[in-house]
């Protein structure tokens, strides 16, 4: 215990006149408690006798500056707000290291841990927040700490002096600042974050991704979507085990998963408490003589974990205490991450949607992302990454609720631009740029060069891109280049793009996106959206499945499939029907089945009361009317009979249809069923731009209808004719002959090469028929038939990719994977509620 200031006792009247001033006791020597006292003193320095109880053995310091202390950018002395002299000068009694443990409202008395008691006329509770400790085994081991006060910082500094590994649990503001500090102090830091992106409460996915990339570049390991199972160690921390089994060694674990208002004292005293201590607009609790302020309060349903609302709360509190109430109306908050060299700003509601409109600016080469959310002509939220210079300006417009319509077109470029010279026309702004102003940062192209290129005859965006490279890389300057085309060509510029864009979220076409994913080594959907300047925060139902496929195709075994970017059938591994039930098609290799499989199918039909079972066009059996909840059980039954998913639901290999061939048929020339089975075994499970059907016919009578398939084999006496690019459907197209081969192995190799070329070359949702017509038969013959080395490379790329894709998705689901896809969250009954998952 540490006594500071001068000690007053209950009978200490102090006043020369003998009339005791009312006594204000403040519980909490932190930012809120002291700020409230400062505000009070400013209004009336003699109104109250003030006593402050603090749990920590320090004077009042700036808690939000602990991060710079940890990082070595500040010393403790530099973050002290009020030193001992301040307490003495203002005749404030400070009792440190002795927290109040009880409030007796009837007697108007508080009791501290040491047993000390004190009487109050007014009591102010400013207990702040407690760090939330996740209840995992090992949470009490020495070396597990939170990041809340100076003691935690001292512990971290001591651990860092020893070097070694540290784990920070929680990738929010506080956790990342702790990780940054520990990393600067020489520890090898791993951040474990439960959510898929960092700082998800402050940042949208795009900004979260940029942040993660930057932190990883600085040597931190960031594990998102990682759930802590336990902290392991005998006498101290040795590591953290995740629920997926991974063990991360650590001699220090910092838990920074969140804070909770510290309300225990108030609750025990019988005050009204929700998430925080309930206060009115004057920060008065349910007891008229007790006030509360800061992170421990709940005002109008809101609790705040940031420092800015304190200032407003403390003003309202002091106004009320001196008898001129003003009232607190809640706060709009903004956040800045205090990690040197990384600029992140977020304010207000950046969730968008509804009537909200987004203005997004991305400059990939400089790592900049800006997003301003507008509703009814007013800014309601902003997320800035990389360039936060205008954060305060946006925040100011947001708080004032100013109509931004007049500057809307230029808003995203920042205050200087939007308010500079009253240029309401973006074209005028571009026209005003000097000739040596840089337009394309990626390729270093100046305005003068772009204009010269256009004047030399490049009249379209594509022509500009291919001639001087402006806008050919990240594309973020596309708008500028278009404006230059307009300015230079006037009415001659049609503005129409030649290339059909992938969707409304981007100005790039499928081909551009595919090429750049490989060329730039892009490995995730948010990365593509950022680098290629997507105009929406998380795409749409057209581009997300396409990007998911392109990434899956480009990085086999490496890219993790995004379930939420899959259409329902591929996510559920079954075909949705008009009534919301599903149909299930088990694989039958080459269309051959046996009694065991047929019995299993018959049993499933009866057991799950399937209203219909039907033979499909591709020679398989389709079981209709299965509920999503029953799918895993149905699959388990089918698995038990040796059957796997038939992928009748996927942009994937569907079926290999066969005729009986030379084994039975009097006309058969080759073993068409045997070859069909081999082809299906080789190619099942592969994801493609669209569905893909194969057939093998044993003779030119073509009973398997191989000439309207994506890949068809027609057996002849001397070998195998390979046909490509056919389909039934709305517009029937018969195949073109690719070539003729003499052995089954050659047929298999050519089939694999063709599939891989289709996978790598076609646009998403483009079947082989329109693809063939787009690129031409000669091109395909050249790639697959003439270029032998190229063909072998395609075949081996296909087989490599297949080594990752031939796991049966049904077996995984039947064993319990993705259970949430098939179960209800809970069940709602009018009177009671049964939650299935607690």
């Amino acid at each position: 215990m540490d006594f500071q200031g001068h000690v007053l006792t209950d009978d200490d009247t102090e006043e020369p006149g003998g009339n005791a001033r009312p006594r204000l006791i403040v519980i909490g020597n932190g930012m809120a408690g002291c700020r409230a006292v400062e505000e009070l003193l400013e209004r009336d320095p003699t109104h109250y006798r003030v006593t402050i109880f603090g749990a920590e053995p320090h004077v009042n310091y700036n808690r939000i500056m602990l991060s710079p202390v940890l990082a070595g950018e500040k010393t403790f002395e530099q973050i002290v707000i009020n030193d001992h002299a301040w307490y003495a000068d203002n005749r404030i009694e400070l009792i440190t290291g002795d927290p109040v443990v009880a409030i007796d409202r009837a007697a108007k008395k508080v009791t501290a841990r040491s047993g000390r008691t004190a009487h109050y006329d007014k009591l102010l509770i400013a207990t702040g927040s407690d760090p939330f400790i996740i209840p995992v085994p090992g949470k009490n081991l020495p070396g597990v700490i939170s990041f809340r006060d100076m003691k935690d910082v001292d512990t971290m500094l001591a651990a860092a002096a020893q070097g070694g590994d540290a784990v920070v649990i929680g990738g929010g503001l506080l956790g990342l600042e702790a990780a940054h500090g520990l990393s600067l102090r020489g520890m090898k830091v791993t951040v474990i974050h439960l959510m898929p992106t960092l700082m998800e409460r402050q940042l949208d996915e795009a900004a979260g991704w940029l942040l993660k990339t930057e932190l990883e570049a600085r040597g931190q390991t960031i594990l998102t979507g990682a759930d802590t199972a336990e902290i392991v160690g005998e006498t101290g921390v040795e590591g953290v085990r995740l629920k997926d089994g991974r063990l991360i060694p650590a001699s220090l674990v910092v838990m920074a998963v969140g804070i909770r208002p510290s309300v225990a004292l108030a609750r025990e005293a019988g005050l009204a408490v929700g998430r925080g201590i309930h206060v009115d607009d004057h920060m008065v609790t349910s007891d008229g003589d007790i006030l509360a302020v800061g992170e421990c309060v709940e005002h109008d349903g809101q609790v705040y974990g940031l420092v800015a609302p304190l200032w407003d709360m403390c003003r309202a509190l002091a106004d009320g205490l001196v008898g001129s109430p003003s009232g607190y109306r809640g706060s709009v908050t903004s956040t800045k991450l205090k990690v040197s060299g990384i600029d992140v700003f977020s304010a207000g509601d950046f969730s968008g949607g509804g009537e909200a409109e987004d203005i997004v600016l991305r400059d990939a080469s400089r790592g900049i992302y800006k997003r301003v959310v507008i509703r009814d002509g007013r800014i309601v939220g902003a997320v800035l990454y990389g360039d936060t210079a205008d954060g305060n300006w946006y925040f100011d417009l947001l708080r004032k609720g100013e109509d931004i319509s007049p500057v809307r077109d230029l808003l995203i470029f920042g205050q200087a631009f939007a308010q500079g010279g009253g240029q309401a026309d973006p074209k005028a702004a571009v026209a005003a740029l000097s000739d040596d102003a840089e337009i394309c940062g990626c390729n270093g192209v100046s305005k003068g060069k772009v204009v010269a290129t256009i004047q030399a005859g490049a009249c379209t965006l594509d022509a500009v891109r291919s001639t001087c490279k402006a806008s050919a890389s990240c594309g973020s300057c596309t708008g500028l280049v278009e404006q230059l085309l307009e300015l230079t060509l006037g009415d001659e510029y049609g503005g129409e793009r030649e290339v059909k864009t992938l969707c409304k979220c981007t100005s790039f076409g499928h081909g551009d996106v595919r090429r750049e994913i490989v060329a730039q080594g892009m490995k995730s959907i948010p990365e593509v959206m950022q680098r290629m300047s997507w105009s929406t925060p998380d795409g749409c139902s057209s581009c997300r499945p396409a990007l998911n496929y392109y990434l899956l195709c480009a990085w086999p075994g490496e890219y993790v499939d995004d379930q939420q970017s899959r259409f329902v059938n591929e996510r559920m591994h079954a075909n949705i029907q008009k009534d919301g039930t599903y149909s299930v098609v088990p694989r039958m290799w080459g269309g051959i089945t046996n009694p065991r499989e047929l019995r299993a199918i018959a049993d499933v039909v009866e057991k799950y009361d399937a209203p219909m079972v039907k033979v499909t066009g591709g020679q398989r059996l389709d079981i209709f009317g299965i509920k999503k909840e029953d799918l895993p059980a149905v699959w388990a039954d089918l698995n038990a009979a040796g059957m796997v998913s038939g992928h009748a639901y996927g942009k994937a290999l569907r079926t290999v249809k066969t005729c009986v061939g030379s084994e039975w048929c009097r006309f058969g020339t080759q073993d068409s069923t045997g070859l069909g089975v081999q082809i299906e075994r080789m190619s099942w499970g592969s994801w493609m731009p669209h569905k893909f059907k194969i057939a093998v016919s044993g003779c030119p009578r073509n009973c398997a209808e191989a000439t309207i398939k994506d890949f068809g084999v027609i057996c002849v006496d001397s070998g195998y004719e390979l046909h490509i690019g056919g389909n039934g459907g709305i517009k029937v197209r018969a195949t073109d002959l690719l070539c003729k081969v003499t052995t089954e192995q050659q047929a298999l190799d050519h089939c694999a090469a063709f599939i891989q070329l289709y996978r790598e070359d076609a646009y998403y949702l483009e079947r082989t028929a329109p693809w063939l017509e787009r690129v031409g038969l000669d091109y395909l013959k050249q790639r697959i038939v003439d270029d032998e080395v190229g063909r072998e490379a395609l075949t081996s790329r296909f087989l490599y990719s297949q080594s990752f894709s031939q796991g049966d998705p049904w077996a995984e689901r039947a064993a319990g994977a993705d259970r949430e896809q098939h179960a209800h969250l809970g069940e709602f009954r009018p009177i009671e509620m049964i939650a299935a998952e607690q």
Partner: protein
Amino acid sequence: MYVGDWIDVGPLAAIPMRGSRTVPVAGGDEIALFRTGDNQVFALVNRCPHKHGPLSQGIIHGHAVSCPLHNWRISLVTGQALGEDRGCTPTIPVKVDGGRVLLCRTSTLKAAA
């Protein structure tokens, strides 16, 4: 368990990001809970105004969902069909408190009846 008019239907963590989960209502229409990319939760009757497709199975993008049957886009905020299509699905007030998802009881009964 319920407090006042809010009914706890389960943990937020059980709804995948950009995903959806369902809650059947005894004697009424199923409710679909959506969790968007910015970590907000919305609740709608699980039925597209067009041909009654289960919206919970659609792709969620921004604050909208694309119906799995015919790709109508439905606003998760208003329940209105977006773009050229016309129609509306009832929305239900929902909130997240302490990591739990809470549905408004009265509105659920009204919407699902």
